[in-house]
């Protein structure tokens, strides 16, 4: 039910370690910002989570990302309630550790679709218990037999974060518009959101796509904002319509430059496709995986050291340009990117 509050939250500025210790714990139900492995993944927070040895997470989300890849690599995830389980650069392909752990019965996967998860978070964000959605009738997503949390006996009402039903199909009662689906609100315990800028009171802003980050912020009990930079709150108020999350929903602010690496923060830096290919290659055999984790997760003393380890050349290549918000210096495919010019489609369409 809506969480009636008697006083406003006061966002604390914390270090990555402090925030992770304060808000992350075994079995927590978490949502991560961004979209797939490409955009604003709070990777530094997932990295710290793994370093702290947190286990049995219930991730409720819209996507697989660099964060979920890392959680799976370290075996930190128990329940994965989402709609797309690929990740980043390997778009379309399943994360290898996820597949292996799922087949061994170490994980529960609950399938929805993008639209359905967006609506569930929207319901959570507006304090509604459920939301109707014209979800695909006849899809096995809404086959009563395929309710993984129900099958695991977890829809008994004991966990207040897990709804008693996956969905309800019913006849639309107001307009006579046939059958429709009711979806339960998504109500994560914690939303971890990486943004471009945060005011020192917590007002947050990103550029580029919004995915469902505003919705997860309002749907979650606690909100941790990681920002490329913390600026005076007064600066954020000069162009308020560019802000998406107001300070009163935020619990903690962490200044974490390059904290979304290897995903992108539009207008700050681009995603690192070759690095993600390296992650995927490492996950394909347990020895390489262990080596990768030792080198990149347990090796560096802190996040700053992780970024320093990447080297100046890589960071220069990834630095976004101020016109497009991405970089054209990174080799993503087999040929370098051409120079910027007006998109042909603009000329063709006459805009």
């Amino acid at each position: 039910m809506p969480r009636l509050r008697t006083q406003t939250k006061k966002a604390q500025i914390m270090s990555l370690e402090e925030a992770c210790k304060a808000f992350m714990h075994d079995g927590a139900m978490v949502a991560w910002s961004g979209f797939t492995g490409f955009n604003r993944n709070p990777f530094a927070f997932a990295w710290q989570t793994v370093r702290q040895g947190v286990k049995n997470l219930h991730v409720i989300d819209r996507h697989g990302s660099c964060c979920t890849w890392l959680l799976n690599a370290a075996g930190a995830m128990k329940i994965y309630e989402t709609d797309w389980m690929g990740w980043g650069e390997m778009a379309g392909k399943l994360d290898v550790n996820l597949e292996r752990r799922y087949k061994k019965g170490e994980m529960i996967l609950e399938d929805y679709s993008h639209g359905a998860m967006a609506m569930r978070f929207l319901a959570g964000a507006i304090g509604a218990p459920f939301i109707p959605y014209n979800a695909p009738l006849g899809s096995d997503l809404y086959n009563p037999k395929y309710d993984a949390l129900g099958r695991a006996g977890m829809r008994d009402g004991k966990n207040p974060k897990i709804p008693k039903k996956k969905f309800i199909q019913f006849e639309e009662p107001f307009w006579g518009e046939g059958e429709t689906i009711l979806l339960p609100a998504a109500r994560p315990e914690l939303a971890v959101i990486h943004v471009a800028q945060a005011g020192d009171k917590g007002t947050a802003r990103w550029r580029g796509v919004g995915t469902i980050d505003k919705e997860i912020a309002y749907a979650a009990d606690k909100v941790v904002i990681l920002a490329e930079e913390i600026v005076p709150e007064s600066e954020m108020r000069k162009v308020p319509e560019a802000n998406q999350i107001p300070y009163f929903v935020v619990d903690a602010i962490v200044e974490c430059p390059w904290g979304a690496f290897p995903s992108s923060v539009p207008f700050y830096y681009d995603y690192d496709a070759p690095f993600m290919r390296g992650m995927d290659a490492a996950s394909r055999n347990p020895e390489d995986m262990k080596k990768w984790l030792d080198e990149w997760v347990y090796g560096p003393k802190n996040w700053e050291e992780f970024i320093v380890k990447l080297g100046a050349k890589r960071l220069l290549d990834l630095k976004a340009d101020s016109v497009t918000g991405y970089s054209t210096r990174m080799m993503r495919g087999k040929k370098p990117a051409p120079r910027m010019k007006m998109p042909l489609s603009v000329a063709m369409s006459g805009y």
Partner: protein
Amino acid sequence: MELIDKIPDEPAKPGEFILPELMAIQIAHQVRNDDIVFAGTGLPMVGIMTANFINAPNALLIYESGICDGKTMHVPMSVCDQRAANMSSTLGGLVDTFGYYLQNGYVTLGFLGGAAIDKYGGVNVTSIGDYYSPAHRFTGSGGNSDIGTMAHRTAFIILQEKRRFIERNDYTTTPGWWCWDFKTNEWKPKKEVWKGTAYANSGPVAVVTNMGNYAFDEKGEIYLKSFHPGVTIEQIKENCGFNLNVSRVEGETKKPTYKELFVLREFVDPELIFLPQKVEYPAHIQKIING
């Protein structure tokens, strides 16, 4: 741009293009100038971008992460790439794309991929074998099931193999023209299951594979429309898991033109992210390009 106008519209010859190029152009041909298109990552995205550069400059492209009508300079690797958001009309999120645009009925064409497809255009992107202990587990729906049922027309691109073109899917992520009615546990025409909803008449209209182009008949059953250059109808039937209707085949798939290939290679994916390689142009085209 002037250069594009100089490249002839004549079809390329075999050996002057590769299969992924042919497939991308086939996707482009599905797009109309007045379409609002919602496309998935990979070849669908490349195909509709090509359409936006040639046959459908005013088609509006939606990418699910919240992008409305991106005008790209560099090929995006994903639907949430900042490259896809370049010069877009508005930028929102999933509630915008799946709620305001899709569920509210604005989207006229959805273009998607799939791991397997049934005879009625039902698509599986979730799992092969038993759902709870699958032989193969894929990424799951993403936007596939939403876009695939609420866009007015939908089209799919799928690799054609016997195990991917099948009578009935192990798991139906996106229902086609026939689907389950879970209230009665019957396999029924979609029009009955979706009766009364706004989407009862929406569904798959085309499938593009590495072997041919397909359409759907009055009963919602898939049939072969054209076979790609170098592929025989016999080979297609061998790579299909059910008795495929080939009686309506119109002939060989139109080969891409030099102009289409030029746009695809030089403007859509010059970085070779989705296209595996770049084929040399024949001498008379190269001469025009070199000026």
